[in-house]
């Protein structure tokens, strides 16, 4: 019997440490499959964040660097400038990228660094215990907004894809979700397109992925998928915000 689906060579055999129902595993697989399909796995260097994906260097089957919190785009810049013919990506969560690392992501995009950033937005800090993230929705309860996030004292959800799409150095900016098979297939296309554009050397590429956190949302995995659909997508609309003029 022919094998129709198997573990991608882009991932190691190490079991994920992620919580049940978390979609980090799906997103890891989409990135890893893409690197294999494009034939670039052996010349790829990935940069991990601080947050739930801090151990991603155990999972991606390529050379990996662990960065300080929020600094992955700066580290990626250093790698890419030293080795311009390598494929370089950062994998970052919403605390890492949208809070402590806002300067690094904006300026990496502004310089048009030929890197790809995968931005996992689950509207909460996972690793540290469910605190409010910059992307937490208004009214959303977290351990540091126990009565729900109020704009008056905790500000508004930060829309990173929209923000980066107006930065001149970025060439591909997309937002996808991984809450349904249909959306996962679309997400794969976006991830693949981002890496293809990096290989072409056109500029900075960015894919925001709406992800679930059943543990910190206090929901079952199926409920979390529905919560994402119902509450996150209206605030964070899916689609391509910026595409290159010529590919």
């Amino acid at each position, binding site marked *: 019997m022919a094998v129709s689906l198997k573990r991608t060579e882009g991932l190691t055999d190490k079991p994920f440490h992620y919580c049940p129902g978390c979609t980090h595993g799906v997103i890891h697989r989409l990135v890893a499959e893409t690197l294999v399909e494009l034939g670039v796995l052996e010349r790829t260097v990935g940069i991990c964040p601080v947050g739930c994906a801090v151990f991603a260097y155990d999972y991606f089957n390529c050379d990996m660097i662990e960065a300080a919190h929020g600094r992955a785009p*700066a*580290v990626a810049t250093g790698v890419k*400038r030293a080795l311009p013919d390598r*494929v370089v990506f950062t994998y970052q969560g919403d605390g890492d990228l949208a809070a402590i690392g806002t300067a690094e992501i904006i300026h990496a995009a502004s310089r048009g660094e030929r890197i790809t950033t995968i931005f996992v937005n689950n509207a909460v800090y996972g690793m540290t215990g469910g605190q409010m993230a910059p992307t937490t929705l208004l009214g959303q309860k977290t351990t540091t907004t126990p009565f729900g996030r109020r704009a008056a004292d905790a500000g508004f959800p930060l829309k990173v894809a929209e923000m980066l799409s107006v930065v001149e150095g970025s060439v591909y900016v997309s937002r996808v979700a991984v809450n349904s098979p249909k959306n996962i297939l679309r997400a794969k296309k976006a991830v693949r397109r981002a890496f293809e554009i990096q290989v072409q050397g056109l500029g900075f590429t960015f894919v925001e992925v709406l992800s679930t956190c059943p543990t910190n949302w206090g929901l079952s995995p199926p409920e979390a998928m529905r919560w994402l659909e119902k509450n996150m997508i209206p605030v964070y609309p899916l689609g391509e915000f910026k595409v290159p003029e010529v590919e």
Partner: protein
Amino acid sequence: MDKILMKGNEAFGEGAVRAGCRLFFGYPITPQSELPHYLARRLPEVGGVYLQAESEVAAINMVYGAAAAGARVMTSSSSPGISLMQEGISYIAGAELPAVIINIMRGGPGLGNIAPSQSDYFQAVKGGGHGDYKLPVLAPSSVQEIIDLVGLAFELADKYRNPVMVVGDGVLGQMMEPVKLGPVPEVVLPPKAWATTGTAGRRTRNIINSLYIEPEELEKVNLRLQAKYREMEREEKRWEEYRLDGAALILVSFGMVARIAKAVVDKLRAAGIPAGLIRPITLYPFPDIPLTTAAETAKAFLVVEMNAGQMVEDVRLAVSSRRPVHFHGRTGGMLTTVAEVTATAREIWEVAE
């Protein structure tokens, strides 16, 4: 070989180019500006990369990335900027990456001023960031020595897989002196099998990391780092001795201040006072050897610094209370003078003799 006139800050840049450094990441700050100005012109000439980062925090993390990729890489800043880099320096030390950091020290604390100072001694030699780590710290006292010590800094960084800091001050950075350069040497970089360059041609993946979640594992890493620092302490102490023959009053100074101290020694000798100077070239590892030896015969020590007395603690440790260790210093960007130090030395000598 012809000599050319060169500014200290520019010499840091040229020294790096001659050591095979082809990547520089930095953020503007006074009084080190001529260094990035120089490299912004010079690095493209040799096929290198000059990149102005959005902050010192980003700059040091770009250094981390380029070092992880196996490149010889440098950054430079001045005191407040170096404070911002401390997180990154700790990560570079923890991940055991080679990199060179230049600190042209200015008056502090806080925003302080842009005048020359040596007040980052503690920060440089005792670690600086979080965690139990050390980095070799070199202190040139002339423009020629800047060129030589920047070369040494890159060698030590690669030898120990460790960040290395070279410290100067605004005077050293701004002054011009003749230097011998000669042709740019061909630098053969040592192989870096650990670098994250992509797995092509390799059986195993390389991972650059300073995260060890199991305490047992992290303790082993720390013990390995400490063994490395002990090796540095055995192998890398460097210092200059000046007129130590029969010296009974020993001055101890580093960097620019050592030049003032030399003039003081000459003046005291001319007046019949047997003074000498020990100038630490490595601030870490601290050259305690000549101090311990001198403590056997000398009558007193005088440490002169442009700070409130930071190196004096290391001198006292080396002298182990066998002789009095005095201190003379100026702070806030004030320079000490030959007359001022000579007067202090004479007072000490009158009591000690």
